[in-house]
């Protein structure tokens, strides 16, 4: 246990600040009510009831196959792209149920952006990657697009590295740069929420640090939900953490509490590395 506290001693200092902020109860941006999901016959999510607060970082941890990726993909309905998926239950986003048939998936995804496990820039120039979102939503004017691209790249901490080669193909960037570019691409359409599915799992340690710093700076403006299988990462950057196991939420609470005094023995076992 002593080792544990030692391990998280550094982030704990930062946490104090956020704790003070957390004293003002934040409104929830997403609220799931008995959410169930099946891939064909296999049930991947079982009765999920979660309230995800706005303008903060919510980490989702758990062993492989626990449904954590599936869960965040339901938040922007990306999960529908997989054939044979069936959902039951409600997800309330800003007061409306996004799982209802009338709710447009495109409108939802414009509001709820996503960053993926592997950086997936389009095979286009850096500029066109960032401008893609605004363009499909009807912004054509060059001067406006220029501003959006510059601002998004600056917000994603990558402007200085790419400002002289905006016309070059995004595939010339390093993995870490590509991932920050993907975050910039997501910021360009000014979403409310950013979902991140293990955004640093394909990156080296230095790039990971940069992306983590970026994520922390983003929470002032955006609500962030991040899936990670790296517990230290969850402890370092998140405000609250949900622990998933076999498609169920075992525990959900403030990150520092969950990591220091988990209420459930399974959480305890997982964060101490007894399985996973």
């Amino acid at each position, binding site marked *: 246990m002593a080792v544990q506290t030692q391990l998280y001693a550094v982030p704990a200092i930062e946490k104090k600040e956020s704790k003070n902020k957390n004293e003002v109860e934040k409104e929830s941006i997403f609220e799931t009510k008995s959410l169930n999901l099946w891939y064909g016959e296999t049930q991947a999510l079982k009765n999920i009831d979660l309230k995800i607060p706005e303008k903060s970082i919510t980490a989702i941890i758990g062993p492989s196959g626990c449904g954590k990726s599936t869960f965040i993909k339901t938040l922007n309905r*990306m999960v529908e792209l997989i054939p044979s998926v069936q959902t039951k239950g409600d997800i309330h986003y800003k007061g409306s149920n996004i799982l209802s048939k009338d709710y447009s998936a495109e409108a939802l995804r414009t509001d709820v952006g996503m960053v993926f496990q592997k950086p997936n820039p389009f095979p286009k120039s850096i500029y066109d990657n960032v401008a893609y979102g605004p363009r499909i939503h009807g912004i054509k004017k060059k001067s406006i697009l220029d501003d959006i691209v510059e601002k998004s790249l600056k917000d994603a901490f990558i402007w200085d590295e790419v400002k002289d080669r905006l016309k070059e193909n995004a595939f010339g960037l390093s993995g870490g740069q590509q991932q920050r570019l993907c975050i910039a691409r997501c910021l360009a359409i000014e979403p409310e929420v950013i979902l991140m599915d293990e955004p640093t799992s394909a990156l080296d340690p230095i790039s990971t640090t940069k992306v983590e710093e970026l994520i922390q700076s983003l929470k002032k403006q955006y609500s962030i939900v991040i899936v990670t299988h790296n517990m230290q990462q969850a402890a370092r950057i998140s405000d609250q953490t949900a622990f998933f196991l076999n498609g169920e939420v075992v525990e959900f609470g403030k990150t520092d509490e969950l990591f220091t005094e988990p209420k459930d023995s399974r959480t305890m076992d997982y964060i101490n590395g007894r399985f996973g």
Partner: protein
Amino acid sequence: MTTKNVSVNTANLSTKQLMNEKKSAASIKNVFEKMVPAVLFLFAAVSVLTTIAILYTLITEAIHFFQRVSFTEFFTSTNLKPLSQNPSFGLLPLLSGTLLSTIIAMVVAGPIGLMAAIYLSEYASDRVRKLLKPMLELLAGIPTIVYGFFAFTFVTPLLRSIWPEIELTNILSPGLVMGIMIIPMVASLSEDAMNSVPNTMREGAYGLGATKLETAIKVVIPAAISGIVASFVLAISRAIGETMIVTIASGSTKNFSFDVTESMQTMTAYIVEVSSGDAAAGTTVYYSIYAVALTLFTMTFLMNLLAKKIARRFREEY
């Protein structure tokens, strides 16, 4: 006990001994192994050598032709009267026929093939794709002579009932049918190219709120453009070289014109006409088909070079 041990030992030894005995056989094997690359090279060389031989024949025979007819006459004259008392050998009438039929075919096959590819790769469910794609490719297996009859006995009368000015043999009908014939080629190859675009790229676009169509047109097609261009160029080469349909349905009028309702001859149909009769070996008419064939070869060769260049320029690496 001891005997058993010995027998085990001899068994062990015998493996070694057996291998040693095989060593003499192995030396023969080594010689064979060394010959294998040479033999395989010969097989690989067959098609290359054939191409060189064909090119050699074309060039040597075409030289005979150009000794009798000047280069300028062949490439600039709009008159082609090979069998007249006062013959003239202008390529342009044949070139206009070939270009026109190819353009008509591509106007049909390009959009239809691409739309079909978008449907198959982006919209169709796995089950529908598995059913439709082989059916589409079946179209490519129909013998061209069948298409020729289809053009002559079905499409032309149909066109004439709508547009009575069309001649009995015309370039429009075989052009359209050729287009139908190469749809599967465009659709199938473009679909392969689009299908190999990684799904993560589509997810990236969907994640930004793009619709299926926006994703297909602005992400998938640009990413697959090199394959799509390649499929178009292959289709064009196929249309330029297509023979049977035009021979049957477009007549043999050697007419320099761009009027699709008229009868026109293509380069390929001219070669068929001359080589299947009329021309005695050694005459200028006879040699003219080599000149036409050489031009045809050069055209498709340049097309393929161009396609490679275009594909490289537009390539979006992923």
